[in-house]
C-alpha cells in the first residue's frame, strides 16, 4: 500500500521535480560562472574586501530558490488532489487518513530535501573552488535559513491547498509568509547560527499541522 501511495505522488511530481532539479543545477552552474567571472575581472584582494569587510554575499542568487522550489512542489502535489474534490478519492482509500497525508508530505518534503542537499553540496564545492574551506562551510551555514525556507514554503503552501475553508487558507498563507520573512532578515554571513535550531524546531510543527486541514476536508460540517 505504501508503495502505491508513493507511486501516485511520484507520478504527480516526477516531471516538475526533474524540471526543478535542472533549475537547481542550472543555478549552481550560473553561480560558478558568476564567481569565476568576478575573479577574472577583479583582483582577488578586492573580492576579499567585498566578502570580509563589506560582508557582501557572493552567492545570494540562491536565496529564494529553495522557497520557490518548496512552493512549486506543494502546488504540483496538491493541486491535482484539490481540483474537482479529488482529495475525496484518496480519503476513500482503505488506509488511515493521517498515515496517508503524512506519507504524502514526507515524500514531497523528501524530494525538496534532495534538492536542498544538492544546493548545499554544490554551494560548498563551488565556494571551495575559490576560497578556503572555512569560507565554504560558512557559505553553507549562511544558506541554511534559505534551505529551511524551502521547508516552510512547502508546508505553508500545502496547508493552504489542503484547507477547505477560505479564511483559514489565508491564515495559513499569512503564517507561512511571516515565517519565511523571519528567515530572510539577514544581510551578512551566518547571522542565524544561534537562532536557526529554534526556527528549525518550530518549523517541525508543520508536520502534525497538516493533519488538521485534511481532517476538516474529510469531515466538513
Amino acid at each position, binding site marked *: *500500500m505504501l*508503495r*502505491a501511495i508513493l*507511486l*501516485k505522488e511520484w*507520478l*504527480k511530481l516526477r516531471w516538475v521535480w526533474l524540471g526543478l532539479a535542472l533549475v537547481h543545477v542550472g543555478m549552481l552552474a550560473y553561480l560558478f560562472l558568476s564567481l569565476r567571472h568576478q575573479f577574472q575581472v577583479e583582483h582577488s584582494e578586492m573580492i576579499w574586501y567585498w566578502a570580509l569587510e563589506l560582508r557582501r554575499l557572493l552567492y545570494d542568487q540562491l536565496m529564494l530558490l529553495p522557497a520557490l522550489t518548496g512552493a512549486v512542489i506543494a502546488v504540483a502535489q496538491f493541486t*491535482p488532489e484539490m481540483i*474537482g*474534490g*479529488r482529495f*475525496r*478519492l484518496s*480519503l*476513500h*482509500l*482503505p*488506509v*488511515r487518513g493521517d498515515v496517508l497525508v503524512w506519507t504524502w508530505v514526507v515524500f514531497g518534503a523528501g524530494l525538496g530535501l534532495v534538492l536542498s542537499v544538492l544546493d548545499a553540496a554544490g554551494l560548498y564545492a563551488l565556494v571551495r573552488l575559490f576560497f578556503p574551506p572555512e569560507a565554504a562551510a560558512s557559505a553553507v551555514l549562511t544558506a541554511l535559513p534559505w534551505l529551511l525556507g524551502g521547508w516552510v514554503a512547502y508546508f505553508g503552501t500545502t496547508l493552504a491547498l489542503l484547507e477547505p475553508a477560505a479564511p483559514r487558507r489565508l491564515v495559513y498563507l499569512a503564517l507561512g509568509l511571516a515565517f519565511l520573512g523571519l528567515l530572510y532578515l539577514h544581510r551578512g554571513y551566518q547571522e542565524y547560527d544561534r537562532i536557526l535550531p529554534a526556527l528549525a524546531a518550530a518549523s517541525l510543527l508543520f508536520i502534525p499541522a497538516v493533519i488538521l486541514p485534511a481532517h476538516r476536508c*474529510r*469531515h*466538513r*460540517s
Partner: protein
Amino acid sequence: MQNAVRSTAAQTSGGGPVGALAAESTTGPAPAIEVQRLAHRYGSRVIYDDLSFAVPQGKVVALLGKNGVGKTTLIRLLMGYLKPSGGQCRVLGEPSHALSPATRARIGLLFEGHLAYDFMSIAEIERFHRPFYPRWRRDLFYDLVDRLQLPHEHKIANMSCGQRSQVVLGLIFAQDPDLMILDDYSMGLDAGYRRLFLDYLKRCLEQGGKTVFVTSHVVQDMESLVDEVIFLKRGGAVLQMPLAAFRDGFRCFRFDPRGGPMPAPDALIENVDLHGREPLLYTFATREQLTEQLRERCPQLRLAEERAMTLEDAFIGLTGKY
C-alpha cells in the same frame, strides 16, 4: 400503498408501513445502509430535517429526486465527507463519519462526474489501486477497459467522459466490493455508454450478495436495474418502496374540472399537474377511493380514464415538474 415507507416528521405519523419496516429490519440481516433521523443544513437552508430509511443487504436501491433535493449531499454524508447536523448514518454497520479502512475496502464508491486521478494512465491507475483491495480482480478491470481499444499508457485526462466512466467502473468492479454507492453514474454519458455501464453492473450483480445504492437523473434506466426506489423530496420527505409496488400502485388519471374547484395534493392525492396539455392527477389510491373523495371535495370534477405511465412519467408525477 403496501410496503412503502414514508419519512419526515409530518409524514411518519401515519405509522403503519413505518412500523412494518421497523419490525422487518429487526428480524432480517442488518441493513447495508441505515439512516436514522438525519438532519443536515447549509447555513439556514434545511436539506433534511428528519430523514430515515434503510438499504437492505443484497438489494439494488435507487435514490431518486429532482435537482437540489440533496442526493449528492446524502452520498457525502454516507461516506463521511460531511458531518450531519443531527441523526446518524450507518454504513455496513459502522457510523458513516468513522468508517474503518477495512469497511472502506468493502465499499465501491463512484463519485459524481466519474472522478478519477486523471494524471494517471490506464495501467498506472490499475497498479495504484490494486494493493489496497485484497479481492482485487484485475481481469474484470481490463475486460471492461480493453473494450475502449486504447493503449494502457493512455492518460485518463485525454479520455472522453464516457471512456473515463468505463475506467472508473472497471476500478469499482475490480475492487469486488460488497456495497456499491454510485452517485449519478449517468452524468455526461451518452445512451451507449450508459447501457454498457448498466450491462456490466447487472453482470456484476449476478454473482449475488452485492448491495447497490445508486442515484441517477435517468429514471428509465432504473426500471430494469433496481429492486427498491427511494424518492427524496425537497425538505427531506422520503418515500421508499419496492419498484414493482410503485409501478403497480402509482396511478395517473386524466380529469376534467368542469369549472369547479381544482383538486389539490392531500392524503390521497400525491400530485396534480395542471401544466400539461390536459390536467392530470397522481395517486396511490384506487379509482373508487379517489372518486369517493372527489365527489365530496370537487363535485363537478369528472375523472377520466387511467393513463399508462413510464417510470419517468411516474417519477415526475410523484415529485412534480417544478
